[in-house]
């Protein structure tokens, strides 16, 4: 029996990365910045976006693509806060979103009338780190009900993120959470992280987040009132 060997040398993620490049190109052509929100389940991604849509919706035209393993509950919550289209991706068991899903979602979004795109990824601090969605930056959200050493336990996600939102700071009086240690753990993994300290419930710390988004979307501080 003769055996023939075919050289392949193909990266398994190459197809996804090609699609991510296509997504990045489409967004760049419309000068639309994009943020991929990643976190463990329950850190407050949807609440952060609800408040953001409420606060900035009349100044920044935001589109959101949500991903969940099951239900479109998050998309429904966000759709209640905006007249703009919220695209729901139900991954049907998959632990991450991929670039094809984002590309398909963008087909339904009027990019000419959009200033900023959010992807709310599946709540999972491991797998979404392996899939480039074509975003400009990942924002890792980390709540004070989680352990301070979470960045050390899940380093890839923190390494790949440019921004870190530490959320639920309204609970700090009731928890033994050491903020300095949490920030130090995150900086140990990624010294370049920019931090936001927020409570999406009370609004504390949200202004800095809003100013950041406004600047990103090209609206600028002056237009923020």
């Amino acid at each position, binding site marked *: *029996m*003769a*055996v*023939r*060997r*075919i*050289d*392949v*040398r*193909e*990266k*398994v*993620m190459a*197809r996804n990365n090609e699609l991510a490049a296509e997504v990045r190109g489409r967004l760049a052509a419309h000068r639309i910045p994009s943020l991929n929100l990643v976190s463990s389940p329950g850190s407050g991604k949807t609440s952060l976006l609800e408040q953001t849509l409420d606060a900035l919706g009349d100044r920044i035209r935001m589109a959101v693509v949500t991903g969940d393993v099951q239900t479109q509950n998050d998309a429904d919550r966000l759709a209640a806060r905006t007249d703009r289209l919220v695209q729901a991706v139900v991954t049907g068991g*998959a*632990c*991450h979103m991929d670039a094809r899903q984002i590309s398909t979602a963008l087909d339904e979004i009027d990019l000419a009338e959009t200033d900023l795109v959010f992807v709310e990824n599946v709540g*999972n601090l*491991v*797998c979404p*780190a*392996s899939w480039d969605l074509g975003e400009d930056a990942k924002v890792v959200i980390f709540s004070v009900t989680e352990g301070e050493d979470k960045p050390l336990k899940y380093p*890839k996600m923190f390494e790949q993120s440019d921004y870190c939102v530490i959320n639920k700071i309204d609970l700090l009086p009731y928890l033994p959470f050491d903020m300095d240690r949490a920030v130090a753990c995150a900086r140990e993994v990624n010294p370049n992280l920019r931090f936001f300290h927020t409570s999406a419930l009370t609004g504390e710390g949200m202004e800095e987040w809003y100013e950041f988004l406004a600047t990103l979307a090209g609206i600028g501080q002056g237009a923020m009132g």
Partner: protein
Amino acid sequence: MHELSIAYDICRITEEHVGAGELASVLEVGVEVGVNAGLEIDSLEFCLEALLGAPPFGQAVPKIERLDGDELRVTYVEVEDGSP
């Protein structure tokens, strides 16, 4: 957690290089996996054994090489070429 979807992608890449009609003749699929690729390598191997050992494949087995770093790629496919 996503080893099965990666295993399906490896099968897709194999099919692209071999052809859909020739999958039963695949004997071995070489895969390089970095220890930081975000995968449980034993789980990936289990998934690949299940997929490559069933139709449309016939008797193929994965050959996984563990590397440093986060590399993840299909390196080669071996097929029975039909000649004696």
